[in-house]
């Protein structure tokens, strides 16, 4: 088992990065890896409530975020600096996340075996 940290940096529907990052997250967890997720930069927009991706021709993959606990993905961190930059509050998010400072995120990354950025 390895500690995989998957970072989401891009907005959810303009590219396939978020969807394919989430696919890899769930698959890795189902292969018994210890998976943690970090949302930073515009990746935070993935977490917003009340989105309607199908209206822009995108698959509603973000509904799958609700399944993270079922896959034993319990560590979901968001970057506090990015929250400030984007004017977002915890109540804007559709799932429970933990806010972390840049320093805390750095130390989390230092503790991971592999970091994969989407």
């Amino acid at each position, binding site marked *: 088992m390895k500690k995989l940290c998957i970072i989401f940096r891009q907005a959810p529907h303009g590219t396939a990065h978020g969807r394919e990052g989430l696919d890899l997250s769930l698959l*890795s967890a189902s292969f018994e890896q210890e998976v943690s997720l970090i949302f930073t930069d515009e990746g935070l927009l993935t977490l917003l409530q009340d989105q309607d991706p199908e209206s822009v021709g995108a698959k509603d993959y973000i509904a799958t975020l609700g399944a993270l606990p079922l896959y034993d993905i319990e560590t979901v961190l968001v970057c506090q600096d990015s929250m400030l930059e984007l004017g977002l509050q915890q109540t804007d998010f559709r799932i429970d996340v933990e806010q972390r400072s840049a320093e805390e995120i750095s130390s989390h990354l230092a503790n991971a075996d592999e970091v994969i950025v989407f």
Partner: protein
Amino acid sequence: MSKFIIQVNSAAYGCASSYSAYRFAKAAIENGHSIEKVFFYQDGVLNTNHLNSPASDEFDLKQAWIDLHQRHGVALVNCVSAALRRGVLSESDAKENQYSHWNMQPPFIMGGLGELVIGIETADRLVSF
């Protein structure tokens, strides 16, 4: 000496990172390391389109991957779902979907994301491009 798995996320043409991935893989092998496999994900699956046809005076990255496989036995694995979404099909995918054509052939093979995860677990280090 280390065992690497390489993840390629960008197309063969139009972005330098796939070429960087190839250069990294080649240099690692030449320096005595081993490459467990190259896993093509996201737009990286476009590296394996057999119809990639660069002009004769341009670098042929698809052929370079094939040479890497033939010389050093490096497995070249596509994420099948990422590939199908982007129109990269093996012969069996084409038949399954009732298409008369396909554009991926050996030594490239299709696999699932599990191949990447198993590769990550058994290699010393994943390097993504």
